[in-house]
């Protein structure tokens, strides 16, 4: 697991309409649990949370479409980072899926133009690394919601940095 240093330029304090909403959902983890339910959700600021939930949920369809599109082709040629899933008028949605079919989704305000693609990429890499640490906790059962304080603090730090 390599360390990634995320450098994001400071932004105006006035730009408060930002929100970064992250949702992670798990699919095919266990037979008994339903598909695509979220393991972890965080948004900042917290108004409009319901709209984010909706946006993320619909974007999961796009994610599914992208990962099944490869299909017959070599699985290892598909990148983990899915890039911009689709732009709506308000938000940009980015996706990332691991080889174990765990999906990470980041929703960012369209007015936030200072977040570049490679910054989003490194955010996903950090998320992926932190998620791996959570999985290594012997008290964590795959499929549970993520309660880990370490994961929480990494996500919070990332969202503060990006906003």
């Amino acid at each position: 697991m390599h360390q990634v240093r995320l450098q994001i330029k400071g932004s105006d304090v006035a730009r408060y309409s930002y929100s970064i909403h992250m949702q992670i959902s798990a699919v095919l983890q266990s037979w008994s649990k339903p598909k695509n339910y979220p393991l972890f959700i965080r948004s900042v600021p917290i108004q409009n949370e319901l709209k984010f939930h909706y946006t993320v949920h619909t974007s999961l369809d796009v994610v599914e479409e992208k990962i099944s599109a490869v299909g017959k082709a070599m699985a290892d040629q598909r990148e983990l980072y899915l890039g911009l899933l689709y732009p709506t008028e308000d938000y940009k949605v980015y996706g990332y899926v691991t080889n174990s079919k765990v999906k990470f989704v980041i929703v960012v305000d369209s007015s936030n133009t200072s977040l570049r693609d490679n910054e989003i990429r490194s955010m996903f890499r950090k998320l992926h690394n932190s998620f791996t640490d959570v999985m290594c906790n012997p008290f964590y059962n795959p499929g549970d919601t993520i309660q880990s304080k370490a994961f929480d603090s990494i996500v919070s730090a990332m969202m503060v940095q990006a906003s």
Partner: protein
Amino acid sequence: MSRQSNRTTDSKKMNAELFTLTYGALVTQLCKDYENDEEVNKQLDKMGYNIGVRLIEDFLARSSVGRCQDFRETADVIAKVAFKMYLGITPSVTNWSPAGDEFSLILESNPLVDFVELPDNHSSLVYSNLLCGVLRGALEMVQMAVAVKFSQDTLRGDNVTEIRMKFIKRMEENLPAGDE
């Protein structure tokens, strides 16, 4: 084909994460089986004891340290040789009691607890209690009765992990109590 030659060379490298995950699986399985933190702590101590009485032979064969003259020397050997050899860390020896029969080992990092976060319902679990048993068992085989416990634990929010060791008595040359 003597095992002696194996022992003088470096121990085979094993992936640290596999070791940590194995220990984690052990502890969580014990928690599921006993459902009581105190009971789990006791079991970990017992298991550690059984490891310790065997590990001491390996240690003595590998390290060729002589008999320690006093408890202070014992503490140094434990911290600088034994921990280094088996866990790859070197704790510091501090907090000697005035009588010289108690000391603390301060571990900056503990390879057993990488990635571990104790959930709230296991607040009295001493996750690394196996180590206490190992130390107790190993020292018993060199005729020293000690009491070992964790006085600080990073999993519980402390800054460092501290193991407190207290010398009880020198034992007579009798057979060990055997597997408890």
